């Protein structure tokens, strides 16, 4: 990948206040890049900090959250810019799609109202123009009878249709980056496939960049160009999709892939033993060590740094048990 990426996140750390006065670190030292026209995947179980990451990038963290590091977007640092500039960017250059289309659309406002209000706010234009734009966008995401759809309420659409509408809504202001937080998780498998195809098509047609956040590596393998894997607030592995998903190097990624239905050469689905740590109880050392089959004594003490093992591949595991053997058994 050459040239400056569209979004370049460096050492992002997010902490949230705990009622007893201490701070919980939801994300630590996260590094992430999204190139122009790229679909970058961010994977991890629930509680791994991936959703907090997306909220931090959008500037929607709850009160009391503290953020450090930098997130360069189109040459400007999101984390240090004024709230006003941030608000001007939000929904305009960077848009967000939420997990559950059943709750992300306002139940009492018509589709037309919801699809035009931010367009009118960002572009200071007439309702008629905004409606035309909304109609085009609905057409783009293949909603039948877009004009009629604008007059209806969300509860008159199915889940898949609502997610299409949410995507169309995000596209209205021609954003360069879309952050999609588990956009297909709440949908049926057949509907999921349609939404993923839609992302691929839009990326091609609109030169859109997408940060796709999901716990589902199956979804990831379908569309992502690059994959980053998070565990307990830290990045554990990152690289091109084909590399990471076919030749995982971090034990956690390996475990995730084995847990996929129908995956894992060595005998079908295997779950990772143990439970993911909650945000309040990150174990010392490598956070994954209590569940790791390759755990060495040093893993319980030292936090492994993320190191580049090739041009385009980074892992946070000094043991590297899955490295290809020097002498390959043929």
């Amino acid at each position, binding site marked *: 990948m050459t040239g400056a990426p569209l979004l370049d996140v460096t050492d992002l750390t997010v902490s949230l206040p705990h009622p007893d006065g201490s701070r919980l670190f939801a994300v630590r030292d996260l590094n992430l890049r999204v190139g122009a026209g790229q679909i970058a995947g961010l994977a991890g179980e629930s509680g791994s900090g991936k959703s907090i990451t997306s909220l931090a990038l*959008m500037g*929607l963290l709850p009160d009391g959250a503290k953020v450090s590091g930098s997130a360069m977007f189109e040459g400007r640092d999101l984390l240090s810019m004024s709230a006003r500039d941030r*608000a*001007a*960017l*939000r*929904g*305009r250059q960077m*848009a*967000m799609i*939420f*997990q*559950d289309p059943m*709750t*992300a*659309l*306002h*139940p*009492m*406002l018509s589709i037309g109202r919801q699809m035009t*209000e*931010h367009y009118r*706010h*960002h572009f200071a234009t007439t309702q008629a123009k905004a409606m035309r734009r909304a109609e085009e966008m609905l057409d783009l995401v293949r909603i039948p009878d877009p004009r009629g759809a604008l007059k209806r*309420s969300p*509860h008159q659409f199915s889940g898949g249709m609502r997610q299409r509408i*949410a995507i169309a*809504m995000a596209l209205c202001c021609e954003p360069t980056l879309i952050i999609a937080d588990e956009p297909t998780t709440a949908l049926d498998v057949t509907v999921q496939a349609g939404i993923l195809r839609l992302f691929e098509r839009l990326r091609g047609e609109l030169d859109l960049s997408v940060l796709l956040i999901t716990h589902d590596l199956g979804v990831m393998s379908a569309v992502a160009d690059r994959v980053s894997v998070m565990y307990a607030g830290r990045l554990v592995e990152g690289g091109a999709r084909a590399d990471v998903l076919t030749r995982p190097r971090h034990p956690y990624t390996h475990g995730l892939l084995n847990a996929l239905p129908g995956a894992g050469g060595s005998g079908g689905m295997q779950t990772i033993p143990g439970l993911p740590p909650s945000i309040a109880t990150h174990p010392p050392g490598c956070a994954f060590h209590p569940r790791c089959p390759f755990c060495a004594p040093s893993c319980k003490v030292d936090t492994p740094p993320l190191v580049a093992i090739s041009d385009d591949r980074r892992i946070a595991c000094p043991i590297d048990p899955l490295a290809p053997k020097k002498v390959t058994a043929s």
Partner: protein
Amino acid sequence: MMQMIRSGWYRLPGLLRFTLGRLVVGALLCVGVTFISFTLTQVVPGDPVMANLGERAASDPEIVALYRERYGLDQSLPEQYARYLGRLLQGDLGESQQTHRPVATDLATYMSATIELAIVAMILAMAAGVALGITAAVWRNRWPDQAIRVISLAGVSVPTFWLALVCLYVFFFKLNLSPGVGRLGPGTPAPPTLTGLYTFDALLSGQWGLFREALSYIALPALVLATYTTGIVTRFTRVAMLDSLGNDYVRAARAKGLPARTVILRHALRPALAAIVTVSGMAFGRMLAGAVLVESVYSWPGLGLYAYRSALTLDLQAIMGVSLIIAVIYILVNLGVDILYAVIDPRIRY
């Protein structure tokens, strides 16, 4: 036959079906209310003969027997209830001992003043309560929230009758900002009766001076009557707003870059409003009850003052008439609120 009714029922448009259903429930409630008021007059251990005849007459067995026969007191309870219902349906609520007029006529005379007072107070309470509740929710757990919590708790704690007196003392006696008690100054003719609400009638007949005078008289009692309800509406709005602000669609609205004002007032308030409207219906009933205390201090010629005077002379018929009419108003208001709710929120129509 049932099948036909049923299939026809489901062919009605949703909102109409919902409204008809609520109307039936409301009508049943009204019948229940008459039952309660009848039961109370029966269960309460005061002897209606003693209460209504006075000691001398009650000691004469012949008069008592005649009285019992006249009012059907010698019949069985179900028969008495049937008679009672029959009289109610003809608009006969008995006779007031105090005014020696039919209770129904008295109620008609006094009702409009109370309705006017309650409407003005309700507008004040809703405006203040919703504004305070939104502020508290937006500043959750910070000092504005704490301050509003204390204010709203004070609002529901202050004895209405005492606040009425204190306000009268301060604003009328000391500061001379209020013209005093009553609906209009002595000698001022009332506006032509259109709705019975002086402020509306004055406005409708274009009498600006009269409108201002009526407004200056209603301001103080309405303000006092509104305090309690303001506290209730504030607390409820805060909870409903907190609920609403936590919704995905509010976060989605923020993610669209909409200004905080739009997010709060358009996206978060709207679903909260449905809940607020519901509580306001119940609060309205309580407000009508609170009117007794306010009206007795401000000589406001409404149902409350009438009930107060009737209670002092132990005039059971008159008080039962007032409670019956207020209970029916309460049911009707809540019926209206239910229907309004269905109009606001398209998901409600089943």
